[in-house]
């Protein structure tokens, strides 16, 4: 059994990263040329890692399932990226960003990693500006900032509502430069279907060419997974349609521990589901809650009525009522849960009854329509395009949606998983956000890992590989892995059942959303586990996939991903069941304060739950990494 060693460097918190960097083993340039690294995924973390390692001189192979690395879902991030630049002179510092992130994460993340993240944030902005990312500016020509939820300083850098797009294009351009230079070989429309472990070390991957259907072997001295989060286990989420857990899950099955899978973030302001065939939920920036008032009718009978006809005294501005201190600006998890409760009471609005109103009429009265248009014009027009309703006249309808997964592959300080030579960066790892991620921190983490952390830390491992020589893909481990991948594809194709892949995915999503969503309880989670097991069994005997494994077969691709979600879903429920406390995105209904708020249990659960694959999806083994807080005091959040 592998012991969890976080490899946190010695010394005071603020010096750990500097000390680490000055002592870490390096690989000489002539040796780097002889070392191959595989990067799976081309979002912010993957593209920046591949580009930077290419610049350093490693031979990099980068894989993405999309038709171009520029399409990875990092592109959809709207709001911005945090950095402790203190350009606004409002008292920001690396320590403050570190502290906010630890506190925002409800004290379930590793101090040393988070402090390093805060340190790197400063360099990220310099790097991106130098790459030509057109960040918003003031008339004086210097960079502009805005504030974001949960913090008291203005440290968010942004490029209109398309910050993720611009940062990804920056990383993609750096990657493209390395592709042109020949240091990175790019494999578009390729999906990783297994990690190959030779003598205990990750030595390559098995990938499927999604155009030709060919199964390919790729060998390397190290493999980096930058494959994003697993929010699509819920079927409906703000993730892209193709976002999946397959790469991380295969790694898990090959020995990488999966940490805190139950920590998922639900974003309160999304456009609600409109019908049964909805495929995707669209997020709208949280900033809307600055001027919008959230309400539902007081009486169930009023829910079907035209909102404008419901009198002021018949409306329940429930956030303002329950949380008078913060009102509509309570944090994401609190706002989301409150919306769920009023809808569960039957007071939800809209076609499905799963929506609440976000009303701008009083803000428009107070500030005028022009001011509101100036602040939120693009969001209002996006809303109108999707719903065909004019939010200047009719209150918006919103509902929470799955947005981000804090959990992921367990990694140590060096971002190495429990399999030597296998690394995880960005949303794919668990490391920096604890139980809840603050706004504008996902982009920061992806880029910190890719540009500034992994390229150093991977040297510590690769410096021991300079005498290894080229890794052959003829090793029996490759034969075995390839055969397993092929067998599994054939197995899927041979079922020829009656239910479509999407059908199973939707059924899984419903179980997860109902029982492992915004609020969980032991009984529901136990039910969910048995329902998922039954669904998984049915999947493997009744799924229908047309065609064969040669050439493009989208249903086959989806089936492989859903098969993995069906296993991950169970692990998420087991993790949620194990964690007998409420913290961050994980809210157990049994564990709340007298006022009904989340009750954290620091005495028993200040640990990272790292799950080891036990040979079958229903037999995971739990390992705990105790979290030590030397620099911050654990406090309870209150918003009343």
């Amino acid at each position, binding site marked *: 059994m592998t012991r969890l060693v976080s490899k946190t460097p010695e010394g005071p918190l603020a010096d750990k990263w500097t000390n680490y960097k000055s002592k870490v083993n390096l690989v000489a340039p002539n040796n780097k040329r002889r070392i191959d690294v595989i990067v799976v995924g081309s979002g912010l973390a993957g593209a920046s890692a591949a580009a*930077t390692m290419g610049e350093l001189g490693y031979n990099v192979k980068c894989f993405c399932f999309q038709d*171009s690395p520029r399409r990875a879902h990092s592109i959809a991030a709207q709001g911005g990226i945090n950095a402790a*630049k203190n350009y606004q002179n409002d008292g920001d510092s690396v320590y403050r960003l570190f502290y906010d992130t630890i506190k925002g994460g409800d004290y379930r993340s590793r101090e040393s990693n988070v402090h390093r993240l805060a340190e790197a944030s400063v360099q990220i902005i310099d790097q991106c500006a130098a790459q*030509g990312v057109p960040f918003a500016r003031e008339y004086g020509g210097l960079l502009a900032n805005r504030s974001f939820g949960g913090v008291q300083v203005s440290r968010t850098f942004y490029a209109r509502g398309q910050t993720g797009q611009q940062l990804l294009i920056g990383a993609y351009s*750096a990657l493209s430069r390395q592709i042109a230079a020949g240091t990175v070989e790019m494999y*578009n429309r390729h999906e990783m279907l297994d990690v190959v472990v030779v003598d205990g070390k990750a030595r390559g991957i098995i990938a499927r060419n999604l155009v030709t259907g060919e199964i390919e072997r790729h060998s390397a001295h190290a493999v980096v997974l930058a494959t994003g989060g697993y929010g699509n286990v819920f079927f409906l989420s*703000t993730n*892209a349609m193709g976002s999946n857990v397959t790469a991380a899950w295969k790694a898990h099955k090959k020995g990488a521990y999966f940490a805190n899978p139950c920590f998922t973030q639900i974003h309160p302001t999304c456009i609600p589901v409109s019908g049964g065939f909805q495929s995707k939920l669209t997020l709208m920036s949280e900033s809307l809650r600055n001027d919008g008032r959230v309400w539902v009718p007081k009486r169930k009978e009023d829910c079907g009525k035209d909102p404008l006809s419901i009198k002021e005294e018949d409306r329940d501005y429930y956030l303002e009522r329950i949380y008078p201190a913060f009102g509509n600006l309570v944090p994401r998890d609190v706002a989301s849960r409150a919306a769920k409760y009023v809808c569960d009471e039957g007071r939800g609005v809209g076609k499905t009854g799963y929506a609440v109103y976000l009303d701008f009429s009083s803000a428009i009265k107070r500030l005028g329509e022009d001011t509101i248009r100036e602040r939120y014009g693009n969001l209002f027009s996006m809303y109108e395009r*999707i719903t065909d309703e004019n939010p200047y006249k009719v209150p918006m309808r919103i509902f929470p949606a799955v947005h981000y997964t804090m959990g992921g592959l367990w990694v140590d300080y060096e971002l190495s998983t429990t399999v030597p030579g296998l690394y995880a960066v960005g949303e794919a790892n668990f490391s920096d956000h604890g139980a809840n991620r603050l706004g504008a921190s996902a982009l920061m983490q992806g880029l910190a890992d890719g540009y500034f952390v992994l390229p150093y830390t991977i040297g510590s491992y690769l410096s021991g590989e300079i005498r290894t020589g080229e890794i052959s893909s003829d090793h029996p481990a490759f034969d075995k892995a390839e055969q397993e991948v092929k067998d599994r594809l054939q197995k899927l194709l041979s079922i020829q059942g009656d239910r*479509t892949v999407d059908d199973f995915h939707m059924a899984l999503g419903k179980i997860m959303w109902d029982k492992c969503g915004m609020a969980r309880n032991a009984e529901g989670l136990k039910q969910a586990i048995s329902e998922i097991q039954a669904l998984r069994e049915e999947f493997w005997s009744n799924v229908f996939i047309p065609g064969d494994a040669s050439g493009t077969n989208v249903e086959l691709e989806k089936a492989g991903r859903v098969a993995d979600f069906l296993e991950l879903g169970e692990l998420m429920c087991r993790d949620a069941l194990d964690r007998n406390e409420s913290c961050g995105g994980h809210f157990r209904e049994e564990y709340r304060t007298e006022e009904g708020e989340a009750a954290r249990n620091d005495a028993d659960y200040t640990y990272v739950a790292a799950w080891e694959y036990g040979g079958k999806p229903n037999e995971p083994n739990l390992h705990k990494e105790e979290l030590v807080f030397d620099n911050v005091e654990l406090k309870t959040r209150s918003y009343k």
Partner: protein
Amino acid sequence: MKFTIKVWRQNGPKDKGRFETYPLDGIDDDMSFLEMIDVLNQNLLTEKKDPVTFDHDCREGICGMCSMYINGTPHGPEKATTTCQLHMRSFKDGDTITIEPWRAKAFPVIKDLMVDRSAFDRIIQAGGYISINTGNAIDANAIPIEKDLSNEAMNAAVCIGCGACVASCKNSSAMLFLSAKVSHLNLLPQGKAEAKRRVNSMMKAHDSEGFGACTNTGACHAVCPKEISLTNIARLNREYIGASLTSEKE
């Protein structure tokens, strides 16, 4: 709502391809266009048939993956809207909807509506970047940039690389795409150092991919989901002519 869907089916790059027509019922006007295709595909799967293959990913109008030529227009009838953000309320009950893949020599069809747009990647690889290595950057506020200039660069940088410009152009020219990238980087002070080299090299890549010449019809701008302006093409021309005439290199 009820529709007749006439869609291009092509088994692979070498198949000749043909149109297939499918009746479709029970469509809600709040559905997105791609959700309508999802329904069509679920129906096909129930009949044990091969579903229509199409590119899509984020479904919120930013990744640039969706690429359908709908009733004679890339991304369909709504202005400044990608296919994934198009909704069925933009059509009339009973309409026949014809869906074709992007057509251009540089965008060969892979299957059905899915095309190969890697030519765009190769254009970027030719120079769509600022050549700095990670870790070499100076402080971000060391170079003040005029707000209007930065905005102008951003207006170009919002390009999502979907290829609608090429699809709509009677010459299959990728000048709008190319000019957006060149404008974004050449406008900014950070990009000036290699501005000439960039435009020369990217222009060469554009031509060798087999895209046509721009005849300034403006069809690209009309269909661009991000409304990239034609002034970028003028800027590209200016940059290219200037670079060719003044660059010290042969």
